[in-house]
């Protein structure tokens, strides 16, 4: 059942990306291109996607926060609170990659369905980047189990 529930949630998430057209790099880049504000070509759709998602998730999380999950013994709410260097560096590196192509992880994976060769290259490189990070971390001092236990912030 938890696997079916995950499948359903992935499908709803993907439907949201498709309907909002965030699977299109042009929509994302149209938002990120702030030079479009004075020239009138700016596309603020991404802000609306985030705002709608935040309203639903904000209210929903507040309602279910005290509950035990239906198919799991406990909720894995992220516990980290400190704003540290890995957070900032990681977010900056991610932002650079996002701006170069206009794909973040969710839309990139959903776009595999279009069989675009460029998307396959992007997702394979993304997987290598993720694995490389974990290999690098495993050699260092930071305990990776602890990171995975909180399921990451995202």
């Amino acid at each position, binding site marked *: 059942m938890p696997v079916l529930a995950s499948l359903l949630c*992935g499908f709803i*998430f*993907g439907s949201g990306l498709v*309907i909002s057209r965030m699977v299109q790099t042009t929509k994302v880049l149209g938002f990120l*291109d702030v030079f479009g504000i004075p020239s009138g070509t700016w596309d603020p759709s991404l802000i609306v996607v985030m705002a709608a*998602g935040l309203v639903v998730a*904000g209210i929903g999380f507040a309602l279910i926060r005290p509950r035990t999950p239906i198919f799991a013994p406990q909720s894995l709410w992220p516990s980290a609170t400190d704003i540290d260097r890995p*957070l900032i560096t*990681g977010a900056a590196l991610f932002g650079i990659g996002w701006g170069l192509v206009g794909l973040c992880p969710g839309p990139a994976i959903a776009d595999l369905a279009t069989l675009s060769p460029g998307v396959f290259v992007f997702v394979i490189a993304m997987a290598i980047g993720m694995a490389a990070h974990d290999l690098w971390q495993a050699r260092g001092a930071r305990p990776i189990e602890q990171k995975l236990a909180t399921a990451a912030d995202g």
Partner: protein
Amino acid sequence: MANFTPVSAAIGGALIGLAAVLLMLFTGRIAGISGIAGGLFNPRTDDRLWRLAFIAGLIAAPLAAALLGHPVPMPQMPGSMITIAAAGLLVGFGTRLGNGCTSGHGICGIARLSPRSIVATVVFMVAAIIVVALTHHVIGG
């Protein structure tokens, strides 16, 4: 703002938020795509099945849209495969180092009012805006 599509953006965004709430309600997990996908590539992960199921659902959505007569066109990508690969590496490494992406920090984290996620979202947004300004207007433009 000829390209602005507020209605579809609001419906789609609400569905993304709903998916995040349902995943937490059902499985107690945060719907962060980089966290879900990243766990697949860690040899110490022992919970690959639900991660794969979520990703299968994610890919099934555009396929379902195609079956309903609304195929998702191939996204426009940069001409250089080297740029694409470099961007993919940066997104993969960066999201794991920063513990989240647009979904985990941008939606789930900010919805929890997490200061970490608010800071991360501002940082990746600003970084992406600078890169787009440079590549579209300074170097390429």
